[in-house]
């Protein structure tokens, strides 16, 4: 089938988009904030797409993985701040912690909820983020509803200067790295047995089982992978950019909805889709909030209606069909 060299062509438009974003952010004054937001939305879409797009299961509690990721980083910094000479290593420990906590939570949620299908799964997962939030507040673990604030610790460990560039620049670069790795993983999954198994189970889970596919295994692979990226994203974009964490903020269902819209808008299950979705969503939200303040909160509904009516397969899904037989086809997946 595909030659080795053409195998990675679909990554070109994805990386091109990120490169353009990065260059705009670095070279046009005042744009970095917008670029950082767009990177966050693209990364969020890509992370969620690995589960929602590839399995067709909607996880309404997805933000919980970002939440525990944020806590992972926050805990690493607050608990280890007193150790001398850790320096930048503490950030790495934080990411490992975020990964670990997201994996643990996704295994626990997956083991229960992935036995359910379709709407039942979606409803079962709605409780996850709210439940965790009230658990943390109610049981007063990790400082309960007072949250964790660790600006001082960051300054102390890294020095004021470094901590400040970390928050305003390097955290966003980490988001970019997460987005790029998510793109690699997505393409790898699409091209491997995992992708075939996930497509089969998304289309018809019973038929997939009869074809010899261990559907539970593949659903969990997709779920945990997706959750891990969410955890990393939480750690980078929430904990490092704004060095505090409060339960109501990081377990806010709003972000799950945004992730769903981005994936559906761009084209669920495609590689390029979440990037396109993230850009369209982020740019429209940003400029709406400038030109018609308040309206950015109203865009969910119209966007969903537009997706359903005009392109149920998302922007990239539509492009994919249109350019199916042309030379462009190998770039759009």
């Amino acid at each position, binding site marked *: 089938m595909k030659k080795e060299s053409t195998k990675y062509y679909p990554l070109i438009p994805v990386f091109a988009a990120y490169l353009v974003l990065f260059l705009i952010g670095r070279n046009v004054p005042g744009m970095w904030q917008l670029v950082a937001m767009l990177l966050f939305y693209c990364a969020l879409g890509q992370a969620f797409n690995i589960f929602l797009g590839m399995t067709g299961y909607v996880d309404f509690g997805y933000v919980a993985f970002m939440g525990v990721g944020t806590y992972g980083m926050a805990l690493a910094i607050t608990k280890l701040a007193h150790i001398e000479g850790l320096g930048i290593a503490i950030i790495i420990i934080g990411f490992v912690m975020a990964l670990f906590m997201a994996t643990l939570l996704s295994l626990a949620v997956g083991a229960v909820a992935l036995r359910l299908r379709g709407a039942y799964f979606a409803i079962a997962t709605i409780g996850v983020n709210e439940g965790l939030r009230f658990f943390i507040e109610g049981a007063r673990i990790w400082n309960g509803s007072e949250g964790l604030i660790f600006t001082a610790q960051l300054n102390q460990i890294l020095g004021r200067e470094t901590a400040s560039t970390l928050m305003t620049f390097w955290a966003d670069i980490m988001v970019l790295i997460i987005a790029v790795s998510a793109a690699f993983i997505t393409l790898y999954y699409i091209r491997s047995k995992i992708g075939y198994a996930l*497509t089969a189970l998304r289309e018809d889970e019973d038929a997939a089982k009869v074809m*010899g596919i261990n559907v539970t295994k593949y659903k969990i692979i997709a779920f945990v992978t997706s959750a891990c990226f969410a955890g990393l994203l939480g750690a980078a974009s929430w904990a490092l950019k704004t060095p505090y964490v409060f339960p109501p903020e990081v377990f806010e269902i709003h972000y799950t909805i945004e992730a769903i819209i981005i994936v559906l808008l761009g084209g669920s299950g495609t590689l390029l889709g979440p990037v396109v979705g993230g850009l369209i969503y982020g740019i429209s939200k940003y400029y709406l909030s400038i030109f018609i303040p308040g309206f950015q909160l109203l865009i969910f509904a119209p966007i969903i209606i537009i997706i359903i009516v005009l392109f149920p397969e998302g922007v990239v899904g539509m492009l994919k069909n249109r350019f199916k037989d042309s030379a462009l086809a190998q770039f759009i997946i």
Partner: protein
Amino acid sequence: MSLLILENVTKRFGGLVAVDQVSLEIKHGEFVGIVGPNGSGKTTLFNVINGVFFPEEGRVIFEGLDITTLPPYKRAPLGIGRTFQIPRPFASATVRENVAVGAMFGTLSGKVNVDESLEIADQTIERVGLKEHRNKQAGTLTPVEKKLMEIARALAMKPKLLLMDEAMAGMHPNDIDQMVAFIKQVAEEDKIAIVAMVEHIMRAVVGMAEKVIVLHQGAKLVDAPTKEALEDPKVVEVYLGRPSEK
């Protein structure tokens, strides 16, 4: 050794006994028709054989291995393939990818990689005559093409036993004859035992099966060579009712 043995298999749904104490035996390479009116338990029997349901009583033995409680995804690689009454393609994937899934996951070694399975898929698709459609999305095929694709998907699994659920339903008589001839040829070439479930199209049964098992209200009514079975007064009664008293 028999390929498949069912021993007193019973499957209940609440108070309804869908399959009632059914025993049967299928040999390697045999062509068996399972016949019965609507609601006689044919589909449930299929589901018990390939693991969608586990029976409450009895045993299912495949090549000497007790698979009564083995999940379906573990049975498929042993060599149990299946097609559905209403075709169930993976609609958004291409025909080629659909068939490749069969080769990838449905074979025992489990070590067939993506490229190899796509090759197997190409060969199998050519065999069923869908070559020019191989890059189409499976959801866009005609019903007959979908059936052929399902057969290709099952064949790519290299099954020893192929369960065909109403493979001929809704087909034009000419197509049925062609399909029968094709399936027979494939079964002989690949030495596959075929269990075909048929509700009404007796033409297909007569053309294919060496043996017919008739189910009625979940229980086995007759298990005999085709001609004998279809002329059995009990079978006639199940289908057409009792002859009126003169």
